[in-house]
């Protein structure tokens, strides 16, 4: 579905943001991209959408090179919810905001109405339907941007730091949404610092450092490599740390706190 072939990108100030990055994401995969600030995570995402073109190498989305395809065309397949919702909200009402992209993509008015309704219900924003998106709280704005993306049903959903400004309940809902998208066969890419949020989702994890991919594998395996995580300044999930510190422990780390509790209650049986 998404393929980066030896991609290099240098910013105008001379900083090499991507340095020979090769990555293949298959359809239906859920991938988390982690790494410290400036590791090149957002630059990588912008290459997938065609907003940035590689200095060398190639980026393919569904077999099409992003270098020769417009961002608008790629966006029909790849929906990105950027980190700062204030960078996209401009309409008079929440429903108009949601309808914006749908109209750009030429959806029929009836379908626009249906998709807006669906998105508002999914993210609990029905009561703000006629409100200005600018008066929503930070968390609500973030949910609205997600709803806007999901409304046009892209094949790939990319979430850039989706948990920023979200309370714990919203984070749980968001994790459920990601699982739901994943089970619906969507390709989901999550760029996040929030390892505790990512861990229960158990995605494939891509670790970035200084514009390079330094680790790539299932969360269950990769998150146990303390040396790798430390070198990329990624904090190990608490449940993995707990697992490593237990003298008598199950074969694999707990995926959530409830599982850990059950294990302890059952007399330390393998989960």
């Amino acid at each position, binding site marked *: 579905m998404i393929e980066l072939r030896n991609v290099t990108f240098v910013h105008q100030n001379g900083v090499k943001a991507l340095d020979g990055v090769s990555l293949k994401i298959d359809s239906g995969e859920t991938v988390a991209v982690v790494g410290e600030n400036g590791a090149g995570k957002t630059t990588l995402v912008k290459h997938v959408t065609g907003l940035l073109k590689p200095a060398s190498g190639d980026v393919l989305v569904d077999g099409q090179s992003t270098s020769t395809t417009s*961002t*608008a065309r790629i*966006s029909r397949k790849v*929906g990105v919810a*950027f980190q700062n919702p204030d960078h996209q909200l*401009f309409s008079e009402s929440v429903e108009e905001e949601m309808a914006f992209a749908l109209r750009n993509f030429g959806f029929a008015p009836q379908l626009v109405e249906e998709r807006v309704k669906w998105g508002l219900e999914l993210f609990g924003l029905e009561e703000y339907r006629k409100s200005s998106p*600018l008066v929503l709280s930070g968390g609500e704005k973030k949910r609205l941007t997600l709803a806007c993306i999901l409304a*046009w049903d892209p094949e790939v959903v990319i979430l850039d730091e989706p948990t920023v400004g979200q309370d714990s309940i919203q984070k749980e809902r968001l994790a459920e949404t990601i699982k739901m998208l994943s089970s619906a066969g969507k390709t989901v890419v999550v760029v996040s610092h929030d390892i505790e949020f990512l861990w229960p989702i158990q995605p494939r994890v891509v670790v970035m450092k200084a514009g390079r991919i330094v680790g790539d594998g299932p969360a269950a395996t990769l998150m146990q490599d303390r040396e790798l995580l430390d070198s990329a300044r990624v904090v190990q999930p608490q449940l993995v740390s707990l697992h490593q510190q237990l003298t008598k422990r199950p074969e694999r780390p707990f995926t959530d706190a409830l599982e850990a509790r059950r294990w302890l209650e059952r007399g330390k049986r393998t989960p």
Partner: protein
Amino acid sequence: MMWLSGGFVFRRGTSRYHRLDPRVKLLISVLMFVTTLIVRSLYELAFVLAFMVAVAAVATVLRRVLRTMMLTALFSAFIFAVNFIVTGNLEMSLLYSLRFVAIVVSTSLFFITTSPDELEQVMKTFRLPRDVVFAFVTAVRFIPVMLLDTIQIMDAQKSRGLELEKGNIFRRVRNMIPILIPLVVNSVVRSGELAEAMESRAYGAVPQPTSLVEYRSSLADKAVAAAAVVTFALVAYSFYYVLPVHFP
């Protein structure tokens, strides 16, 4: 945007010109600006532009200045066309259009080599009200931030299927609405937050706050300033009394 970024946004440099007292840099730019206004022929203007290019080379910002000149030429082409249509005088039309390029370069040379902090000190030298100085310097300081905001907003909207380069002129203008509204709203919100942050750090508590940096001109600064004034006087004299006038 890139024209604004390349031509007017300060980037740290280590050249001798960068290290000059900012007041001297302002003096040089003002003198170049005035010289641009008093030229009366293309030869004189060519001399002024060559001098500016030399200053840019000394300041190691030649590439940025040349790029600014090229991009400014697009606007000056419009000035040339209007002048030529109205007056029919080729030389005068060329002079006026190139004068615009020279004016932009003279101001650009000051801004790209002077940090906002130095700019603040220069404005304080003129005993301008503190609030005015702060507002102006903050505006200058936030230009790169707003440019970055604009790029990020454009990226976000393009990712929602907005095609900025598509359609006729009216559609293109309409396509700018999703860019301008978030940009303005963000700027207003940011200015409010900045005001609160400044007040919480005692901005305005005393009428004359102390300054961390006090600029004192070195002998080299004074020598450069004197050389600039003498050069200007000689150039102005030769323009008016030595070189021939091509048209009134």
